[in-house]
C-alpha cells in the first residue's frame, strides 16, 4: 500500500468533557490536506472544541486526534507547522503591532519577517500602535498575520470573521484565499455563515452534534445534491445543500435558520 500524505486533521472517537457536559463526543473524521476546508455546523456542534483540540490548546478526554500525522502541540516542531487564530482573535492589548511581530519572530524559527512587515504595511497598521487600540477587523488581521508569518503547513481559523463587519469580513477572507493559494497551505476554517465559506472553500465538512454529517469537495457535493433534489442547473446553492443536510439530522427544537 502506498502511504498517502497524512491528513490535516484525523480524529477517532474524539471526545472532550467539561465537568459533566460533553462539548464534543465520539467524533470521528478526516480532514484532508491540500484544501481550503470549511467546517460548518450549528452552534454547539463542537467546532471550536475540535479546533482547540487540533491546535493542542485542549487535551482530549477520550479518543485520539492527530494533526499532520502527529499529536497536536507534541513539540516545538509540530507547533511550528500549525497556525491558529482563535475565535476572539486575541492579541496582547499593551503590546504594539511591531511588538507582536517581534514576538512572532522570536518564538517561531520559520518566521517570515519580510512578509509580516509587508502585510502590516498593506493593512495600513501603524507599527507603533498598541494592539489594544486596534479595531476588531485590524485585530483579526494582526492575529492572522502572526499565524501566517510563521509559515505553517496547516492554518486553523476558528470563526475568524464572526465579529467583523461585512467589508472587513470580505477583506479577511480574500487574504486567506490568496495566502492559501500562494503557499500551498491547508486551511481549515469554521463558520456558521455558509456564504463566507462558499467564497473561498473548495472542501466542505458538516459537523452535527459532533458527528461528521457530510464531507467532500464542494463541486462534487453540489452536483450530487442537485441530481438528488432535481434542482435545475446550475447546481443549487451551497446554503441550500448545508441546510438540507443539517435539518435532516437536527432535532426538532433546533431549526436550520441559525445557519443562514
Amino acid at each position, binding site marked *: 500500500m502506498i502511504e498517502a500524505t497524512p491528513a490535516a486533521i484525523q480524529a477517532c472517537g474524539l471526545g472532550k468533557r467539561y465537568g459533566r457536559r460533553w462539548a464534543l463526543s465520539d467524533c470521528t473524521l478526516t480532514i484532508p490536506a491540500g484544501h481550503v476546508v470549511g467546517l460548518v455546523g450549528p452552534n454547539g456542534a463542537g467546532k471550536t472544541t475540535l479546533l482547540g483540540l487540533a491546535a493542542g*490548546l485542549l487535551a482530549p478526554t477520550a479518543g485520539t486526534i492527530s494533526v499532520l500525522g502527529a499529536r497536536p502541540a507534541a513539540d516545538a516542531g509540530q507547533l511550528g507547522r500549525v497556525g491558529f487564530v482563535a475565535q476572539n482573535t486575541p492579541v496582547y492589548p499593551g503590546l504594539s503591532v511591531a511588538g507582536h511581530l*517581534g514576538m512572532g519572530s522570536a518564538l517561531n524559527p520559520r518566521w517570515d519577517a519580510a512578509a509580516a512587515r509587508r502585510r502590516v504595511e498593506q493593512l495600513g497598521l501603524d507599527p507603533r500602535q498598541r494592539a489594544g487600540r486596534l479595531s476588531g477587523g485590524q485585530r483579526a488581521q494582526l492575529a492572522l498575520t502572526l499565524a501566517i508569518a510563521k509559515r505553517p503547513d496547516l492554518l486553523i481559523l476558528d470563526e475568524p470573521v464572526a465579529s467583523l463587519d461585512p467589508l472587513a469580513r470580505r477583506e479577511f477572507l480574500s487574504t486567506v484565499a490568496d495566502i492559501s493559494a500562494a503557499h500551498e497551505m491547508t486551511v481549515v476554517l469554521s463558520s456558521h455563515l455558509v456564504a463566507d465559506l462558499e467564497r473561498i472553500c473548495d472542501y466542505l465538512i458538516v459537523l452535527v452534534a459532533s458527528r461528521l454529517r457530510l464531507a467532500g469537495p464542494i463541486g462534487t457535493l453540489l452536483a450530487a445534491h442537485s441530481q438528488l433534489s432535481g434542482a435545475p442547473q446550475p447546481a443549487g446553492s451551497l446554503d441550500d445543500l448545508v441546510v438540507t443536510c443539517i435539518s435532516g439530522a437536527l432535532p426538532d427544537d433546533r431549526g436550520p435558520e441559525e445557519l443562514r
Partner: protein
Amino acid sequence: MIQFSLRMTRVQNFTAAAAIAVVAIVAAITGPHLAQLYATTVGACDRRSACVVAAFASQDSTLRLWLGVLVVVVPGLAGMFLGAPLVARELEDGTVSLAWTQSVTRARWLIVRLLVTGLASVAVAGLVSLIVTWWASPMDRAGMNQFGSFDERGIVPLGYAAFAFTLGVVAGALVRRTIPAMMLTLVGFVAARLAVKIWLRPFLITPLTRSLALAPGSTGYGSSGYLPIAPPATLQPNPPDIPNGWITSIGVVSNHGGARLTATELARFCPGINSGRGSAGGGLGHVRAPQSVVNGLHDCVARVGTRFHELVSYQPASRYWPLQWYELAIFLAAAVVLAAACIWRVRRIG
C-alpha cells in the same frame, strides 16, 4: 523568548528600576552621614544606650523604619504584580491561545518566563536589601540588635521574593483570574512568612540556654503579648544583656526538674499577687507603683527564687548568618516546589 519575557513585564520592570533608583539616591545622600556619625560618636561611646539614641537623630530612625518596611514589602509586591498575572492574565484575556500556539512548547514558555521574571523579582529584592543593609549598617552596629531587623537585611529577602513570585504564578494558574490571584498571593505570602518567623526560625538551630538566679529588684509581674492572645500574667524576669543575640524565650523554672512555674504555685508563694487593680498607666508613660506594692513583689520574687530560677533560650550573635542561610534555603526550596507545581498545572490546562 528571554527578550519577549522581559518585554511582557515592561511596565513592572520600569517601575522596579525607578523605585530602586530612588532608594539608591536616598541612601547615597544620607548614608555617608550615618557612617560618619558612627565613626565620630558611637565609636567613642561606651557601646550602648543613651549615647546611641543621642547620636542618631530621630529622622534617621524614621528613615530606617521605612526602608526596613520597604525591604519587607518588595517581595510581596513582586508576587502580586509579577507572579500572579503571569499566567492568570493570559488565561483571562484569552491570549493563551496566542502564546501557546507559537513554535514553543507550553512547558518551555513557562520555564523561560518563570526564570526571567522570577530572577528579575529576586534581583529587585536583593538590590533593595543590599542598599538598605549597607545604609543601615552603622545604626545596626550601634543598636546591637541585629536579630531585630533579621527580615529586612541580608540575603533572606531574596528567598522571600522567589517564594512570593512562584506563589503568585501558581495562584494565577489555579484561580485563573488576576485580582483574586493577587489577593491569594498576598494572604499566602504573609501567612508563610509569619509561620516561619514564629514557629520555625527560633528552632532552626537548637537555641542555647542560660540559667540565672531570679533578681528580685528587676523582675516584674504581668503579661506580654497582644490582647486577645496574650498569655496569662506571671513573673516577668528582666532579659539578660546578650549583645546582638536573639532571646527566643524567657521562663521561670524549677531548680529541681526544670518544670515551669505555674499560676497555683505562684499564688502559694505570693498570696494575693493576682488581686487588686493593675497599675498600667493607661498605656501612655509610666505610673510608679506604691512602695508597698514594690516591696511586696520584691519579697515575693525572693521567696520564689529559693526554689526557681530564670531560664533564657537564645540564639547567639554568631548564628545570625547561619540562620539567614537556612531561612533563605527554606524559601528557595519552597519556590522550586511551587515552580514545579506550576509547570505541572499549566501543562494540564485545557
